[in-house]
């Protein structure tokens, strides 16, 4: 009997008890589904965050003050940075230029109705776009009578509000509740489309940016700096960190630690987090696989006892022990493979769905499909070994006559 024939017979046996065998592979299916789901999700999350931080070109340094989230990103930044900080940081040897960013609630006024701007109006300085290396259609704002708007705002959002797209030179009426006043801005420039996702809740494509002098704010939530070169970014970070530690004004204002993000360390943090998630899922998967394999072993033991007579017949007509062993082992391999195949499909569907629901950029980790199928194969072998061995120990006379 060759391997092909053994696989053929094994498949016939599996098909005879479809429901029973499907149920006993459920453990493997769940384990693999979990593995694939978590891996699709974590890979997509990683890709999304990497994309999110791509707008941080390799020279940009973003400084915030607040509690660090799981991803090393401050979501509720405190207003602590002053114009004085900006001036001092800009003088540091490895810093090319520096900008402050703040924001306040704002509404776009159209036909006397007010439509809230999701992230408010951004208050910054004219060279903000050169820090981020954003290309503009038009120019940056020169004063607080001008704004620069993001690509999505100028096109999609504006079309919803005004039934038309915005162009450079158009005017835009914005109401600022903090000042209880409406302002008429002229659009000085439109930021060219930036590739970034919306997972962090901020999208520079939706920005409306004007000069900070619009309000009387003296404290800003974000300080962005541009290093003189991508090589010098670590030195620039160190200089900024030292400045913030030594500067009494900044120290007094900050009730939380300063968090400095660069493209490099964000990528590192994401890798660490995704790796932790993958290791966690792998642990759960291994435990589930052990439970699943017990199910398959149990089913195979039942099959061996049920087919005692058949084993006796096979031995009587000349089947060798290794051939009987192979037949049962192949059945358990089939069960492991079926379980992992179904698990891959279920896990893919769930992973894709969850990634989509959470606005992540989908990354399908194909290598994990192969790993999962291999794991199913190994589980099949391991769970079938004992029942297969038992099948070879069946006494022929006992099987045929009793």
């Amino acid at each position, binding site marked *: *009997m060759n391997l092909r024939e053994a696989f053929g017979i094994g498949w016939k046996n599996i098909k*005879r008890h479809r429901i029973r065998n499907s149920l006993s592979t459920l453990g493997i299916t769940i384990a693999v589904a979990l593995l694939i789901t978590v891996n699709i999700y974590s890979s997509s999350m990683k890709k999304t965050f990497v994309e999110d931080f791509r707008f941080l070109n390799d020279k940009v340094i973003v400084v915030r003050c607040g509690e660090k989230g799981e991803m090393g990103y401050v979501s509720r930044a405190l207003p602590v940075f002053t114009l004085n900080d900006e001036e001092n940081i800009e003088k540091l040897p490895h810093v090319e230029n520096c900008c402050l960013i703040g924001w306040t609630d704002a509404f776009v006024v159209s036909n006397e109705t007010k439509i809230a701007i999701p992230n408010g109006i951004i208050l910054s300085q004219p060279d903000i776009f050169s820090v981020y290396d954003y290309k503009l259609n038009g120019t940056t704002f020169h004063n607080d009578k001008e704004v620069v708007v993001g690509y999505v705002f100028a096109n999609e959002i504006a079309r919803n509000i005004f039934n038309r797209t915005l162009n450079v030179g158009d005017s835009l009426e914005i109401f600022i509740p903090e000042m209880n006043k409406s302002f008429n801005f002229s659009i000085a420039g439109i930021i060219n489309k930036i590739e970034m996702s919306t997972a962090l809740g901020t999208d520079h494509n939706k920005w409306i940016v004007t000069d900070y002098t619009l309000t009387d704010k003296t404290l800003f939530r974000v300080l962005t700096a541009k290093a003189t070169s991508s090589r010098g970014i670590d030195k620039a970070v160190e200089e900024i960190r030292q400045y913030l530690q030594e500067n009494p004004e900044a120290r007094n204002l900050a009730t939380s630690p300063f968090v400095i993000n660069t493209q490099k360390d964000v990528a590192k943090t994401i890798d660490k987090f995704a790796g932790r998630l993958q290791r966690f899922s792998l642990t759960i998967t291994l435990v589930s696989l052990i439970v699943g394999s017990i199910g398959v072993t149990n089913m195979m033991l039942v099959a061996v006892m049920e087919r005692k007579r*058949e084993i*006796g*017949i096979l031995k*009587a007509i*000349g089947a060798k*022990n290794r051939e009987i062993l192979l037949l049962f082992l192949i059945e358990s391999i089939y069960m492991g493979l079926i379980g992992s195949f179904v698990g891959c499909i279920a896990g893919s569907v769930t992973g894709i769905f969850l990634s989509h629901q959470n606005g992540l950029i989908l990354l399908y980790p194909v290598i994990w499909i192969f790993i999962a199928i291999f794991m199913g194969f190994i589980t099949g072998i391991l769970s079938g070994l004992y029942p297969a061995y038992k099948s070879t120990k069946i006494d022929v006379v006992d099987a045929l006559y009793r």
Partner: protein
Amino acid sequence: MDKEKTRKMSTLSLINLKKYYNSGKRVVKALDGISLNVKKGDFIAIKGPSGAGKTTLLNIMGCLDKPTYGEVKINDINVLRLSENELAEIRNKYIGFVFQSFNLIEKLNALENVILPMMFAGIPYDERARKAENLLRKVGLEKRMHHSPSQLSGGEMQRVAIARALANDPKILLVDEPTGNLDSKTGYQIMNILKELNRKDRTIVLVTHDDNIASYAHIIYHMIDGKISKVEDNKK
């Protein structure tokens, strides 16, 4: 085992065979000093009442069971010294079994049942399919090849079992109560098939409790309580 050597096997010798079982504190002597020789082309019947030890003897002859004492020689090779794999090879190539309860595999059809021993012998697919079809044709089942055992009558199942036993062209056919589950007319047909096989030089060892069935054999060994009580020459 040397293939050429085993190919020439045609005789079977049992020397002082004893098979004892423990039944609680009592020792049951299923076989108690049996010696006999089977030569090429013989048609032997082992006859005796239920519990005489006939089937135990047949199982030992067919390398399915091992005696407590004694020797089993097939072509002068003591099979008790062979490994499990070597015994499986002997069962596959040199011995054919026909059981009272047919012992066909339910999930396989008649053709597949006959093909099975050839598969374990490593015969190529086309050859074994052709051979199995020929064998089924010879036992008159050309129209029932693709039927499963549950769709066949008792006589048909026994004919499939005979075809299966002949699949690897064995030298010895061991037949255990072949007509036990059949009506007399079908039993007669089965016995005629066996008689015809013997006429073509096939060695047959038959176990039965039935005088009429035993009468087909050339030598009848009468067994009682694990011993041969009488040897009857039935050559006509």
